[in-house]
Structure formats: C-alpha cells, structure tokens
C-alpha cells in the first residue's frame, strides 16, 4: 500500500521508557490506529503500545500467518496468529460447559458463567480486525434511543445523526463495499446522494437461490408486519470502486500492507476465509490505518509491550503516567518495566482489555461501572440442506442477509435480530466439512465415487443462517479482575461473568421458529439441533438453544451523560480522568444488530477530533479529516 518504499521504524524500550509524548495509545487495533492516524496527521507526537508482536508488517510476515493457519489442525478464529505466553489471548476451544460454582480458568479468560461465552479477541498488531469477518453495517437510529423508544436498555448521549459524518469517515477508512439502495430499512439514512466507497460484493449463488423463494415472505411481530428480503451486506472488503463516491471523485482501494511493493493487494477473490485470515489482504485490517499513521512520521510503535498500570494523580484525577512491560521472548518469562508520560492517554485495547487494565490499576470509576454492562451479540445458529447443490464453501463468508426486522415496536418485549446467510456452510455449527467427511467415511462406509457424490449431496447443499441477537447492557454482566488469576507476567486475567436474559432468549425462540418457516418455504431439510452438553446451551419456555458469542465485546466503559451513570462522555473521555480516553466498543451504550467495528471506528474519529481540540490543535471537521484524509 505504501509508495515510499521506506521501512517503518519500530521504536524500542530504550527509546521510549521515561519519555513524554503528546498522546500515548494502548492498542494497535482499529480504535488505536484511527486515533493515531488522525493525530499523527495533525502533527501530534504519538506512541502506540502493542502487546503482541511487531513483526507483522511485511507481506512475508503476513504469509507466515497464512501458513500457520494452513498448518493448524484446529482452525479456530485465532489459529492464524502467533501465540504468546506474555500476551495471551482467548481461544474459542477453551470454552466448556460450566458446572455451577466452578469457574473455567483453563484458557486466558476466566469464565464464571452462568453462560459460557466462546467469544475471543486477538492480541496482535492490528488487533481483532485481523480475524474479523468485515461486516460493516451501521447501527440504526432507533438503537441509540433504546430507553426512550422501547423502555429497555439505555439511550446514548448522542444521536445517530451526530455520528453520520463519522460513519462516513469510517466507511472511507475501512473501505466499505455495499449498495446504499440495499440498506433502505429500519429508518437507516445515509443522507441524500451518498454512496459507499465500493459497490456491493456480488451476491452468492446461494443468496440468489434463497432470494428467489424467500423475498416477499411476511413476518408479523407485535402487530407489525415485515416483508422479508435478501439484501447485500456492506463489508470492509476490496471490491469494485464506485465511481460516484466522494461526489464523483471515486475511491482508490487500499491494498496489502507492505513496506515494499511486492503486492498491491487484491480485490476479494472468494477465499471463504475472512475469519481468521484473508490470504490476499482484500479484507480491511487495522494495520492499513496503522501503517498510514506511521507514515505521518509522528507516530511511533512499541510492540511486545503490555500496558500494566495507569498511575493517577490523587488530586487532579489526571493520569500521570503509564507503566508497561516489554518482553523479548514471546513465551519465556522475563520483561522490563518502563513508564511513559503524556498529555493525553488513550486506552484502545478492546472492551475486555480496557476494563481489565482500569481495574488492574484500581480504577473502577466513581460510578463503579468500569467492566460492567458487558455486551456481546448472541448468535443462534440454524442450518438446513437446500434441495439441490447450492455452491456452499465459496465466496466471502457472508454476502447477504435479512435486515428487515432489525427494529420495530416488538423491541419493547424482546431483542432485535438480523440474519446472515452463510456461504461457508455449516462449519460454525457442526465443524463441517470435516464432520461430513467423517460421517461419510466412518459411518456410511463410503469411498471412491460414492464418497465424492456423498460430499456433493451433503456439503454443497449446506445453508446456515445465523441469528444475530441484541444483548442489552446489564450491570451483572461484567469483566472483573481477581488476584487469584494472573498471567505469566503477573497481569490479572479478565474474569468474565455473563448471562442471557429472557429479553434475548425470547428472540432466540422467535428466530428458531422463523428459521423453520424459512426452511419450509425453501424446501430445505432442517438439520438444526442443539446439544444440551454444549457450552452456551440454555433453556427457555421448555425449549433448548445453543447461544454462541459474536466476539463483539462492548459496554465495559459505557458512555452516558454524567459521571454518576457512566464511565465516558460522548467523546469517549473518562469522566473521572480528564486526560484519559477509553476508546472502542466498550463505550457503546447499546449494540443493536450491527457488528461493532464500524460504529467504534466512527466513535474514534469523533474522539480524535476531541483530543485535537483539547490539545489546542485545529481539529478539522470529521467530514474533512475522515472523508478526505
């Protein structure tokens, strides 16, 4: 992506320890990268700390991750990334069914339950955008007014309209491919004449097959009737630039991150591997933004360094310095402890790690809400076989979904939901296609041509529909720390307490019923079943369901209108510590039915403006910083 041909400079412990910067940012994921880029472009001296490896910039480094994925027997969503004992990360396979009163401390997360949550995040350069799928839906206007409209959850201290320009900036930065015409539902408004940077990803053969029979099917909820329609899903993936973008100036896709021009990056090729790693870097990951930040010449990156404690002036509440631990070997014990000072500190390490660091620093907040209101989407999976081969296991993981009931009066009673059509078969639910091969070889005793035919019948016809269900902020769902559980470096590990409420479960039940109707309409053979022994198994009204995590951790430094009832203000600034910003999905007061990344990126553009204003640097309107940067 770069044109300078210059190597980026990773800074060192020696160069940084004891120094002062304008701004220190913890975390090189999308939140930290956006803020670093915006501040660096305006001349601020910025240090970004990354807990994971810094050897992750070149195409060769990237290829190593791809090879690691190929060679991994278990291909979980972090399988492409280097593990480190000094900066451990959660793995979904560590989740197991909990017995009451017995936490699961086998992995990095300590799970208290009652619901086991198999969400993860990635502690590497670029953060969890390395393994994110790339769906880039906006939240709906209603999502920002949950309490006012539906008497549930919380209102945000800002409205959808306040974020519109930042959404645009985020859509440019992430490179969103989508058609605004397909996003006309639920009060979603992009403003007159707006188009996304790139055209929508072509709908898959499966999407088209489903749309043909499904479009026009009606669903009634709380007396309101919704006609369903298969719609393209906006996603941060390189496709065909829209020449109408930016008032006809068009859009130039940003390709692979590289210090040299080995490869300029690609349009999506249909590798069907957005999670955990797109082998051609067609999918946005935050290294793109981070690299642009480094190229400003004002941003330094210190990798292999875990932020361990914020130190606060007892009188002013200002953060005085940040303690961090730098390690040389990813796994061997041993590290050096350093401190940095700054005018402004930004925690951008994700909702779990931000809360963990605050709590490890004995900063639960005057509201005592740090770590509380933990949210994530709950996914109910439903799956079936189409009547004939549908071309499963091709294309981006999802190219279309059903969005029509993302909001409505029913939200007074139960949670909002959207549905994605999966091009990657039943893998998420059943371990397909490996489980299918196992079945055909071990149980059906097939080999040779009948085995091949069996795979065609059993795999190519697969259709999985995920039901992405909203979760409300609830103070009892939380991240905490406990001296009993620390990692190798001595940093406390995140302790997760999480449960599903009837508000969420009622939508799981509704969605299962709806999936039956959909399969009936498509003539698809319903194979959905929920194993009572699986983690995430819950009962509701006598029926059992398995809920899976969405890796959309949010709410742990929730945004509000006062220090009494929230942790940060509408610019993500800490109420208690005026020179501290807690950035990312942790600030979100609701998560609606949108993957959190686009919204948190938008919030970070807003935050960058606020930081610049606070530093006395002229903060351009975000429409210019974001949209024209």
């Amino acid at each position, binding site marked *: 992506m770069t044109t300078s041909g210059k190597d980026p400079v990773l800074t060192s412990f020696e160069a940084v320890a004891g120094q002062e910067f304008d701004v220190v940012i913890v975390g090189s994921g999308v939140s930290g990268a956006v803020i670093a880029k915006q501040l660096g472009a305006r001349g601020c001296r910025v240090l970004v700390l990354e807990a994971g490896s810094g050897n992750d910039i070149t195409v060769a480094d990237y290829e190593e991750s791809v090879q690691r994925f190929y060679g991994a027997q278990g291909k979980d969503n972090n399988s492409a990334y280097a593990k480190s004992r000094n900066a451990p990360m959660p793995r979904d396979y560590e989740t197991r069914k909990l017995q009451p009163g017995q936490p699961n401390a086998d992995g990095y997360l300590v799970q208290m339950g009652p619901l086991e949550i198999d969400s993860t995040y990635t502690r590497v350069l670029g953060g969890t955008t390395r393994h994110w799928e790339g769906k880039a839906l906006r939240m709906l206007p209603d999502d920002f007014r949950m309490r006012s409209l539906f008497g549930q959850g919380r209102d945000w201290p800002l409205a959808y309209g306040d974020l519109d320009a930042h959404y645009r900036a985020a859509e440019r930065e992430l490179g969103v491919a989508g058609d605004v015409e397909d996003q006309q539902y639920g009060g979603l408004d992009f403003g007159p004449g707006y188009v996304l940077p790139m055209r929508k990803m072509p709908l898959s053969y499966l999407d088209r097959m489903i749309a043909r029979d499904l479009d026009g099917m009606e669903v009634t909820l709380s007396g309101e009737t919704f006609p369903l329609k298969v719609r393209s899903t906006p996603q941060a993936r390189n496709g065909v630039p829209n020449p109408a973008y930016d008032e006809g100036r068009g859009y130039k896709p940003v390709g692979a991150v590289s210090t040299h021009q080995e490869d300029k990056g690609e349009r999506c090729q249909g590798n069907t591997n957005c999670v955990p790693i797109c082998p051609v870097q067609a999918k946005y990951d935050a290294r793109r933004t981070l690299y642009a930040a480094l190229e400003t010449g004002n941003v330094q990156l210190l990798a292999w360094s875990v932020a361990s404690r914020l130190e606060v002036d007892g009188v002013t509440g200002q953060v005085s310095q940040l303690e961090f631990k730098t390690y040389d070997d990813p796994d061997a014990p041993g590290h050096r402890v350093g401190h940095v000072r700054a005018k402004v500190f930004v925690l951008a390490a994700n909702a779990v790690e931000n809360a963990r660091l605050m709590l490890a620093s004995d900063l639960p907040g005057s509201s005592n809400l740090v770590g509380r209101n933990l949210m994530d989407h709950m996914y109910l999976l439903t799956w079936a076989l189409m009547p004939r081969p549908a*071309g499963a296991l091709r294309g981006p993981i999802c190219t279309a979904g059903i969005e029509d009931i993302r909001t409505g009066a029913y939200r007074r009673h139960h949670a909002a939901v959207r549905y994605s059509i999966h091009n990657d078969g039943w893998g998420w639910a059943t371990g397909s296609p490996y489980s299918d091969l196992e079945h055909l070889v071990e149980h059906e005793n097939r*080999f*040779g041509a009948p085995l*091949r035919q069996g795979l065609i019948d059993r795999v190519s016809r697969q259709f999985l529909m995920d039901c992405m269900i909203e979760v409300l902020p609830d103070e009892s769902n939380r991240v905490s720390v406990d001296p009993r559980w620390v990692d190798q470096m001595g940093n406390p590990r995140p302790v997760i307490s999480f449960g599903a409420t009837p508000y969420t479960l009622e939508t799981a039940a509704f969605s299962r019923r709806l999936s039956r109707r959909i399969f009936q309409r498509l003539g698809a053979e319903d194979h959905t079943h929920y194993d009572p022994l699986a983690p995430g198994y819950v009962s509701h009204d006598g029926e059992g369901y398995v809920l899976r995590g969405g890796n959309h951790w949010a709410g742990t430094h929730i945004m509000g209108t006062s220090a009494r009832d929230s942790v940060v203000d509408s610019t993500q600034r800490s109420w208690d510590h005026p020179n501290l910003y807690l950035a990312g999905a942790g600030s979100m007061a609701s998560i609606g039915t949108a993957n959190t990344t686009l919204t948190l990126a938008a919030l970070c553009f807003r935050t960058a403006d606020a930081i610049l204003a606070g530093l006395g640097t002229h903060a351009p309107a975000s429409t210019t910083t974001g949209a024209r940067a």
Partner: protein
Amino acid sequence: MADMLDGFLALSEALTGFTGQRLRGTGQAEAYLATATGIVGEGVMRDLLLAAAEARASSGGDTEKHEAELRRLVMSDDRLGPVARNIIRMWYVGSWYQLPKPWREAHGQSPRDHDHVVSPISYTEGLLWPAIGANPAGAKPAGYGMWAMPPRIAPG
C-alpha cells in the same frame, strides 16, 4: 519406499475416486505414503497395498466388483481398514487422524499417531473442496464474483 508409490497411488485412486493424474498433481503422494508408513509401519503398509492389488486383479476392471473386493479385503479388515480410511482423510483434508484405540492396542502405538495436518500445503491440496467445486478455506480461490455462479462440480 519408492517401490510402494505406484501401489499407493493405485489404492488411493480407488479410495478417493480421483484419477492418478489428479492425485499426483497435488504433489502430496510421497508425503502421505511416508506419513502413513511412518505411523503404521512398513509391514502394515505393504500388506495393505498387497490386498489392494489383489482386489484390483480379481475384479478385472469391473468397478462394482472392485469396490466389493476392496470392502472384503481392505475396508472390513481390522488391521487394514482403519489405515485405508485414514488415507482417505489425508487425501481429502490433508490431515492424519489418530487411529482408533482398538487398532493401537492390537497393532502398535506411534508417537506420531495424533491428529495433525501433514503440512500446510497438504491442507490446501485437500480434495474435499474440488470434489464439490469449492476451494479449501483460505486457498485456491476461484476469483472475484465467481461465487455468484453455479458450482463447477466436475469429474476427475
């Protein structure tokens, strides 16, 4: 072991339903033969290839007869069947899976007999995906927009 390669490929054709050209084209035949032989021992492998050769010879080119003979001589054999099924698994997804417990107790343990991907390339050469006109996740993409078209499920 080189003398076993042709026999291994002939058996693999019958087990996978792919042609020898297609199997050789993956470049994995030697690695799979070595992996399997290294774990089950040369004696078992030679017996397996002999049984497969006998099944081929006695079927005189009749596909149905060949399959029946393979079932009789190989697939239902306590010692050879599990190994043959593991050879299918390697060709289809590039991984070796631990042999069943009864097999290990009866015929021997190997420190390498655990679930593992034979090599990063072997995963990408898995035949499960071409069998259904798809690509292994993360490799061998069909190109932009090709997912909008019907799957090309081809013989061979």
